[in-house]
Every structure is written in structure tokens, then in C-alpha cells.
């Protein structure tokens, strides 16, 4: 198990160091992010294997699609080859397609998780205020597209990815309510990390839109969010993978006690 070798404290130190390195040397960013996403994807697959419930397993397989797609869109993956074959424009086009594919997987995974939590019959339900918040997010999406239209910098492939991202943010509201209704616990914490990941990317896009449309007033913030967001996903996934590791350790302890009696 890969998760057995990943200590969250050590991961935090690595994340902090790499964020600092990223900010100081932007040319490293793609490589570090690529490695972080690759690790996230592998952990997602490991979590999926821990589920016997088919749809929950599928949701984690879908979650793995997001980091794998992004890792592939960075230089360690296909983009270097594509760049060599078809030039920079072709490379960017493929990279955007991979981003869109990843967000589709993320959104599908979130919707499936939400649906399954409802289906378990444990009393998880959305409230009226949640739907108001969903409405607010969709309004935010409209503002974002308004800005992009005004700035004239959005092209269709980018627009598709942004729609998926804002829809994921809307599903996040419903998932967040379920987390509250769980009354704490690691699963809720993991879901909140995924929500934070989506939220960070949404904010990053809004800041990007403001910078592009008017004046580059918040370049540092955009830069910071850009280096932070892959680690949020990795932290959440690590926490979930560590649940299985801890359960295995506890199981060994219980069995050890039982056999010694």
C-alpha cells in the first residue's frame, strides 16, 4: 500500500517546501505539480480498491481521473511529445482537453458520491439554504462568463472547463451539508478537502478573470493559488488512504490481542 509510506506531517513539509520553491522558481512548477498529481491519482486508485461497493469504488476511480489527466497535461506526460509533433498550439489544445477531461471526472465523482450518500438512507439531506447557495454559485459563474465576454479572452475549450468547475462547486455545497450532518469524522474531512480544492480553483479562475479583464491587480494571489491547489487534493486523498492503513493496523492489533488470549 502506497499510503503506508506517506506520512501526512512529512507531506506537509514537502508541500510547504515545494510551494516556496514553486514561487521562487516557476519553471519547476509543472514538474512538481505533475509528480503531486501522479501521487494523488495512485492514492485514489488505492482508495477505490478499498471499496467493495461498486458505485463508491467508481466514484474514486472517477476522482483519480482528475489528477491523472492533469499529470498527463504537464510536461512529464504527453505534452512534450505533442509539442514535438504538432507545435505549441497543438500542445496547449491537448492540455486543455486533458483539463476538461479531468474536471468531467471530478464532477462525475462528486455527483456519484452525493447520490450514494443519499441512497444509503442515513438521513443525509440538503436544506433550502443549500439550494440558495447553489443559485449564488451559478450566478458567480454567470459573472465570470460576463467578465470573460467583456475581456474577450475566453475560447470555447476554456469555457467548457470553467462550466464544469462551477458545477462542481455547486455540488460541493450539497456535499458540505452532508459533511455537517455526519457529525465530524475522517470521511467528512476528506470530502471537505475535495470541496476546498474545487473552491480554490474557482477563486483562482475568478481572480484570473479579473486580472485578464481589467488590470492585473492580484497576480500574486493568482500565483499563490496556482501553486497551492494540487496539494489540497493530495492532502485529502492521503487522509482517506490513511484511514485504510490505520484500520489495518488496528485490525492487526485486535487480532494480536485475540490470539494471545
Amino acid at each position: 500500500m502506497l499510503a503506508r509510506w506517506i506520512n501526512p506531517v512529512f507531506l506537509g513539509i514537502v508541500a510547504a517546501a515545494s510551494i516556496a520553491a514553486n514561487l521562487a522558481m516557476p519553471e519547476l512548477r509543472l514538474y512538481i505539480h505533475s509528480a503531486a498529481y501522479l501521487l494523488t491519482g495512485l492514492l485514489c486508485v488505492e482508495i477505490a480498491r478499498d471499496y467493495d461497493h461498486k458505485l463508491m469504488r467508481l466514484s474514486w476511480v472517477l476522482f483519480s481521473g482528475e489528477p491523472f489527466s492533469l499529470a498527463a497535461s504537464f510536461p512529464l506526460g504527453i505534452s512534450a511529445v505533442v509539442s514535438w509533433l504538432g507545435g505549441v498550439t497543438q500542445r496547449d489544445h491537448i492540455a486543455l482537453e486533458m483539463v476538461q477531461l479531468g474536471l468531467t471526472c471530478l464532477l462525475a465523482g462528486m455527483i456519484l458520491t452525493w447520490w450514494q450518500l443519499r441512497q444509503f438512507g442515513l438521513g443525509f439531506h440538503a436544506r433550502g439554504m443549500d439550494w440558495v447557495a447553489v443559485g449564488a454559485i451559478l450566478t458567480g459563474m454567470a459573472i465570470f462568463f460576463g467578465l470573460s465576454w467583456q475581456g474577450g479572452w475566453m475560447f470555447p475549450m476554456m469555457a467548457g472547463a470553467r462550466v464544469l468547475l462551477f458545477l462542481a462547486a455547486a455540488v460541493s455545497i450539497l456535499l458540505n451539508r452532508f459533511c455537517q450532518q455526519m457529525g465530524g469524522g475522517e470521511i467528512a474531512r476528506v470530502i471537505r478537502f475535495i470541496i476546498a480544492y474545487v473552491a480554490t480553483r474557482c477563486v483562482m479562475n475568478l481572480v484570473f478573470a479579473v486580472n485578464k479583464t481589467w488590470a492585473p491587480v492580484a497576480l500574486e494571489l493568482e500565483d499563490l493559488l496556482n501553486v497551492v491547489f494540487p496539494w489540497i487534493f493530495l492532502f485529502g486523498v492521503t487522509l482517506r488512504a490513511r484511514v485504510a492503513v490505520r484500520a489495518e493496523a488496528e485490525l492487526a492489533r485486535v487480532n494480536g490481542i485475540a490470539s494471545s488470549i
Partner: protein
Amino acid sequence: MKHPIDYDDWLGYLDGDLDQIRTARVREHIDHCSECRSTWNELLEATAALRSAAREYAAVHAVCDDEVRSGRERVLARIRTLESPSTLESVAAGELTVGRLRKLQHVVAPVGGARTAFRLIVAAAGRTPVPQGTAAWRIFLEQLTDLTSALCGRSMARLVWEIGNSLP
């Protein structure tokens, strides 16, 4: 008294969607339990009244089957709210002692959350047909393990199973 019929069973039985085994189980319980028989009669009356109202006003208000269904679900939701237990003491019966249930709740809570752990135990107890029977604890554990596996994964489910089996 604990009733082995949960919300889904009521709904499925009403719609005739349950498989043969579950249908037989629900029918048998309704035959023997006066409280559930009374609930069932109320449910039938409510459904009949809603259907009749739907037919009566269909021409004017265009009431459709979906609205009848949603009305019925509201009635069922009300029944569920009235019957849902709020403490482990109200779930405990026979082999399902409070001490054992509390121990399992403490195993699941750090991962699934405190409220989820409680609801999992209530749901598993609801699926245990006769809590006083000798095999009740095993059936309850199987149900709880299934639910935990779906929510928290196989490793946690195995832990719940092992700890559940080791409890005195």
C-alpha cells in the same frame, strides 16, 4: 418493540416493488404486529385518499401521479420521523446490548462521524429481524459491516466485524 420494516420496505411494499422474500417478511410482520398493521391501514387510507383526490381534481388542477407519490412520501417521512430512535438505549434489545452498540459506535465514529455511526447502528438494527434471537448479534454485525463497507471501505468494515465478534 422494534420493527424490522424500514422506510424502504414500506415504500416498496406499497408499490409492490419488493422481492418475494422481503414481501413475505413484511407481510408476516404486519400480520403479527398490531402497531404496524395500524400504520399500514393508515398508509392505505392516506394513499387511497390522495389517489381519489387526484382523480377528482385531475381535470381542473392536472394533478399527476408524481404529486400523489410525493404526497405519500411526505406521509411516510412523517411516520419515519415519529418512529426514528434518538438514543442507543432505544435501539438496544436482546443481544444488541447498549454496551456492545456503544463500543461499535466508538469504532466507526472517528471515520464516519458521530452522527453517521449512530445512524449506521440504527439502520443495521432495523435490518435485524428478531433482536432477541440467538443469531441476532451475528445478523446485526453482518448488516453493520455491509453498511460500513459501503461508506468507509473494506478495511474499516473488517475492523468493525472483528471488534464486533470479539465483544463479550
